[in-house]
């Protein structure tokens, strides 16, 4: 450019032509657009049915009758009376449901973190080698190298499998095997989140600055020492950020898993749904939303503090 003001259309055109382009991105965008068009036009989704007279009647009955507490039906809307009703439900079942929902998610995320912590290092390509952070020249390409590589691949595949299956399906399967207790919900959340935290942890370890770890290696540190005393402290903040991020989702999911029959808030949601007591159901759903909100807030505060400490 010759002067600050003389940006000609030619320059802009040249810049436009020189922009980075990727076939993968283009094909992906087209594929996604086609998928969305197919989803809406393929006949699987009947949106207009939502506005049919029958649906409208349903909705009207739901809003004007079903969600109104049984004792208050036919009376004028009174906020104080409604709050009194909601308070009664919360004290009766809601708060104990909230307590177990929270406990399920806390225990699950702690177990998930323990599992992920041990698997993350095995899945990290810079730790799972015969000479972690060692000299590249010394890296042998023989059996040991291939064995470590195979281990990392197996751990990665296991992590993918753990997280590919949703919590709800894990809980559904585990419930049939373990019977009713809190464990199916706890384990389902722990398994799925171990898969996610393990992957995120492995990526964190792979992206660590290798220099301090190579120094440990050069000073004669073993693999376990490098991982435990070198990589873990360096990655700790990131690990904790991910931990609290997944804790938020755990609280959301723990509410819902109760619908399968574990006593969390979801149990009471499903219970009132089955009885068609929609007045109760709406209160429990709102309680669940309040819990999610509280957990989000707590987690956001901790994460901000962690980020500042970084």
């Amino acid at each position, binding site marked *: 450019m010759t002067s600050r003001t003389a940006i000609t259309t030619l320059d802009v055109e040249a810049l436009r032509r020189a922009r980075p382009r990727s076939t993968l991105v283009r094909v*992906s965008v087209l594929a*996604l657009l086609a*998928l*969305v068009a197919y*989803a*809406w036009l*393929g006949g*699987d*989704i*009947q*949106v207009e*049915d*939502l506005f049919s007279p029958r*649906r409208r009647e*349903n*909705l009207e009955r*739901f809003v004007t009758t*079903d969600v109104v507490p049984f004792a208050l039906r036919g009376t004028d809307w009174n906020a104080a009376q409604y709050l009194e009703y909601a308070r009664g439900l919360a004290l009766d079942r809601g708060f104990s449901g909230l*307590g*177990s929902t*929270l*406990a*399920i998610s*806390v*225990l699950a995320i702690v*177990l998930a973190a323990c599992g992920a912590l041990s698997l993350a290092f095995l899945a990290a390509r810079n730790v799972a080698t015969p000479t972690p952070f060692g000299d590249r020249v010394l890296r042998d390409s023989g059996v040991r190298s291939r064995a470590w590589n195979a281990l990392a691949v197996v751990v990665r595949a296991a992590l*993918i*499998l753990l997280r*590919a*299956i949703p919590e*709800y*399906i894990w809980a*559904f*399967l585990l419930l*049939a*095997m*373990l*019977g009713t207790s*809190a464990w199916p919900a*706890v384990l389902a959340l722990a398994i799925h989140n171990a898969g996610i935290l393990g992957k995120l942890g492995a990526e964190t370890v792979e992206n660590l600055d290798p220099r301090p770890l190579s120094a440990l290696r050069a000073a004669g540190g073993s693999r376990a020492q490098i991982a435990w005393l070198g990589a873990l402290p360096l990655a*700790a903040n990131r690990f*904790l950020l991910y931990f609290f991020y997944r804790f938020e989702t755990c609280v*959301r*999911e723990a*509410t*819902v898993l109760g*619908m399968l029959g574990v*006593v969390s808030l979801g149990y009471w*949601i499903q219970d009132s*749904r089955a009885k068609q007591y*929609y007045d109760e159901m709406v209160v429990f*759903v709102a309680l*669940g*939303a309040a819990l*999610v*909100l509280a957990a989000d807030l707590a987690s956001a505060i*901790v994460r901000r*503090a962690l980020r500042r*400490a*970084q």
Partner: protein
Amino acid sequence: MSNPRASPDARRRPFPITPRIAVALSILVAGALAWMVLDAPFAKLVPQEGGLRVVRAFFARALTPALDYESPVPESTPHILMQALAAARRTLVFAAAGMSVALVLGIVLGFLSTTAWWAGDLVGGSSPLRRALARTVGPAVWSASRALIVLMRSVHELLWAVLFLAAFGLNTGGAVAAIAIPYGGTLAKIFSEMVEETPRDAALALRGAGAGPLQVFFFGLVPRAGPDLAAYAFYRFECAVRSAAVLGFFGFPTLGYAIAQSFENLHYGEVWTYLYALVVLVVTIELWSGALRRRFVA
């Protein structure tokens, strides 16, 4: 803070309790407390008679998923692999439809819930009207959209589905809305956070050249945050596929429906067939998303 050298006291102690270690310890204590609150005896971790039978029968089929139905079916029923493919297709369709609405909601609400369009140095003009707008309409719309986002995302997609089922009855549009609402809220939250954290140099330059707030936002801020936004949206698509699968447990014709049906009929081989279909679907999308992210962010 985390550096022991920062505090001479910490260095003298053999095991310094830094804030990070304190957080880690309290996490473990919280886990132990949670276990005591719950009805979760360790004995319950071992399957009992009935459960043990299920475990054996279920895992016996892990490597031999059903390639044919395990009980007689009507003549007209398509082959089980076609059935799995069709359920996977519907799962994908629900996820894509839900995400397309969520994306629109996320972009609109994400824009409204940033401060960039009404407060701070990105907003041009110092006319009294502009300033009055910045003091009244801006904060009002901003807080309203943030409240809406919170409402949308604090209710889980399955609970939205349950609410829509109660309000409308079984309807595919309800499933799409159940995904679109919480996902739209989450996308809006993350989008606004990403945009707020984007370097503002380009936006300020546009502002200096006389661009309006909308132009500053969409040409100065969004392109800088673009790769991150796209990567996150695609990650949510992956989550939407899982959510769509689970919606099947509530009667929608996705993979979850097939899994629940076969499991309840004790056709464990069929369960594995559908589970593998789900795994293949999710892993394919995850690999795709990973490849895109590397292209975008690196």
